[in-house]
């Protein structure tokens, strides 16, 4: 399982990676914005493969951001489920950022898309297309009309007379020609040799020879339509050329109309697709920003929450007894003052605790020394009295010396044996070694302990059926066996007339730790409420020959296993001792 320090380091590395990715994307966006005009203009010029590569690159960044954001969100949700410190607050911050991003980007997106749609629908409506086509048709019709008019004049019956008169009276004839067809801008006659005979009208239409007569000629400022006809006048063949001049604006405007029509037709054909691509582009650029918002919120919340989480972790460690733990912080961190105060508090607490422990230890030893002296002094009196009595009888030469000697010496031996037993148990209590845990089947252990007592007291029924045969715990077998032996001894002694002794075991969870709870119950005389708080104190006993160390040893063994022991009794119908032993890992016990 990953520890808080590892989590913090991982989060720090992830934050750096996310920041690098965001910066990379922002640089990319900056470049695109800076060269957006060139980008859009030259897009069509890019080869399809280049466009595909650009598209893949443009998609890769959002996908990468999405993957990172998803990973971070899943981590956050899992952290929240696991009760990770401040995960709920981070989730709230994330939701807040997402909401802000949606509220800021959503209306803009809707507005932008609606604007583009309405602009394309209005500016490039079908009526605009019809107008453009109509204008082009009108321009084409106008030119054709001028051409037809010119042709009609040249093919008309008046032309021979005009040609005949034009040589002699060009100005008058030119006026007549314009009267007959006002669209004619110039009139010119060439003889059979191609030499100009006469010319009237706009000089821009003047030809150097009849060979350039037919069709249309575009010049810089004018478009000239020409029509020629060779006729015989007075037995001579001449070529008459009539010209109509059109403003160059017609050509320029028709080209402009054509280009507008090109744009319109393009929009007509690709407008729908363009809208979709535009929306896709919008999401292509806005989605990463949205994802960046999520990542930024995660990074920021991580930075805000991290010191608090460290403090929470440190508090827990201190509560568990690790007073050497200290929270590290950045020098410029806003919460560094709080962390420094916390570290100072822990140092002070540690010093106080050490002093207290020292004082407790001294007090405990003083108390034990006093109790030990008291317990040793108690048998010394009968020993002394017995010895003095024997000595007196001997000195007096008493006749009943033999009668006195045996009980007195017996009493001395009994008291000495009691002293030995007490000192042995005290020695055991003081010298209990550090537990060496190993996998132990609890049922087997209890059966082994119970077998001794079944032989000693047949009046007591021992029931271990509520202890699972498959339950395995990690304990020091010898120490736990001694603890159960003491409990069983007490239970049997509490039932001089018989009864039942029951043991059961269950798994219970307290906070984040799973415990194996073992309950040893008897149907004996019970323990008065007033004594319940003292039964685990050394040398506390209510039994005539008790040492008062049995339950103290039990408590010491259980505490050395990081467990807890307590007793419950109604004071008359029995007592139950509970032992909670922690299970180190979830896979430790198998029930």
């Amino acid at each position, binding site marked *: 399982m990953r520890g808080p320090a590892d989590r913090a380091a991982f989060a720090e590395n992830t934050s750096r990676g996310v920041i690098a990715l965001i910066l990379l994307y922002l640089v990319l966006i900056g470049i695109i914005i800076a060269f957006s005009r060139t980008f*859009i*203009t030259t897009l*069509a010029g890019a*080869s399809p493969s280049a466009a595909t590569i650009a598209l893949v690159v443009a998609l890769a960044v959002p996908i990468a951001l999405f993957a990172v954001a998803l990973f971070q969100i899943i981590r956050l949700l899992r952290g929240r489920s696991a009760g990770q410190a401040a995960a709920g607050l981070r989730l709230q911050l994330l939701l807040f950022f997402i909401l802000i991003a949606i509220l800021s980007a959503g209306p803009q997106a809707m507005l932008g898309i609606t604007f583009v749609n309405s602009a394309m629908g209005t500016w490039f409506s079908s009526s605009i297309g019809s107008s453009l086509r109509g204008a*082009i048709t009108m321009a084409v019709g106008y030119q054709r009309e001028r051409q037809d008019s010119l042709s009609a004049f040249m093919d008309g019956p008046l032309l021979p007379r005009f040609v005949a008169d034009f040589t002699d009276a060009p100005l008058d004839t030119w006026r007549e020609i314009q009267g007959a067809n006002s669209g004619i801008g110039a009139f010119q006659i060439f003889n059979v040799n191609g030499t100009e005979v006469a010319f009237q009208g706009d000089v821009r239409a003047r030809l150097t020879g009849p060979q350039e007569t037919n069709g249309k000629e575009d010049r810089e400022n004018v478009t000239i339509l020409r029509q020629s006809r060779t006729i015989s006048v007075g037995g001579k063949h001449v070529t008459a050329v009539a010209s109509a001049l059109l403003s160059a604006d017609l050509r320029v405007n028709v080209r402009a109309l054509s280009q507008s029509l*090109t*744009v319109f*037709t393009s*929009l007509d*054909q690709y407008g729908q697709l363009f809208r979709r691509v535009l929306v896709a582009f919008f999401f292509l650029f806005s989605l990463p920003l949205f994802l960046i918002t999520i990542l930024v919120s995660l990074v920021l919340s991580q930075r805000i929450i991290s010191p608090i989480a460290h403090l929470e972790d440190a508090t827990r460690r201190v509560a568990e007894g690790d007073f050497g733990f200290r929270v590290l912080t950045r020098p410029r961190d806003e919460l560094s003052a709080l962390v420094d105060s916390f570290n100072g508090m822990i140092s002070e607490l540690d010093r106080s605790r050490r002093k207290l422990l020292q004082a407790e230890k001294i007090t405990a030893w003083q108390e034990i020394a006093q109790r030990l002296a008291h317990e040793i002094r108690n048998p010394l009196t009968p020993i002394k009295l017995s010895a003095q009595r024997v000595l007196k009888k001997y000195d007096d030469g008493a006749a009943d010396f033999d009668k006195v000697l045996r009980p007195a010496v017996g009493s001395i031996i009994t008291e000495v044996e009691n002293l030995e037993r007490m000192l042995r148990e005290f020695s055991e209590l003081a010298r209990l070694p550090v537990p060496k845990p190993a996998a132990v089947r609890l049922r087997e252990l209890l059966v082994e302990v119970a077998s001794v007592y079944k032989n000693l007291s047949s009046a007591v029924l021992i029931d271990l059926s509520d202890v699972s045969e498959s339950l395995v715990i990690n304990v020091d077998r010898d120490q736990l066996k001694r603890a159960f032996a003491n409990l069983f001894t007490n239970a049997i002694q509490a039932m001089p007339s018989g009864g039942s002794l029951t043991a059961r075991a269950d798994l219970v969870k307290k906070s984040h730790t799973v415990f194996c709870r073992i309950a040893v119950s008897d149907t004996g005389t019970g323990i008065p409420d007033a004594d319940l708080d003292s039964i685990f104190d050394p040398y506390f006993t209510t039994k005539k020959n008790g040492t008062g160390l049995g339950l103290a040893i039990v408590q010491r063994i259980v505490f050395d296993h990081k467990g807890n022991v307590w007793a419950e009794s109604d004071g008359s119908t029995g007592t139950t001792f509970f032992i909670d032993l922690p299970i180190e890992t979830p896979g430790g016990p198998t029930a």
Partner: protein
Amino acid sequence: MLCAQGLELTLSGAGGPPSAHLSFHWNQPATLIQSLKSGLESSIGFTFRLYELRRTPWPFRGDRLVMQKTVTRTAYWDPLDGTFVVEQDDGTRRAYPDGAALLDAFFTVSQVLLSPTSSVRGRSLYTMARAQFEPVRLMPPLTLVSMVGATGSVATPWIRKDLP
């Protein structure tokens, strides 16, 4: 003559400066003509590159680019004269009365002079050429749709021919 993906490259000019002739083959001419008559424009770009073969222990450096020339053309329908017009990037325009003449002129570029500098004359030279054809030439910002391949743009691979 080399032919790849509808592109033919021919080199000529023995004795004189070499010139290139590039011809692109488009398999949907009727669609193109119809598209032009509907008012759309089409464009094609021919790119020529002249390289000097470089024999070097450092192959990653590649051959030396001696010269590059690009010819870009746009074709459209002129409704006033009822002709197809091909406009080159230098501004010259030519009108073509029918589709066949247009296709021939639009997709072929001839006599592109490959004039190597005197410093590389006599060395091993070769030409690379390719064409980038847009059946429908779009104006910005409509060019966005070309990113998704809607206009059917074609870029031929580079084809190579060694200079004689």
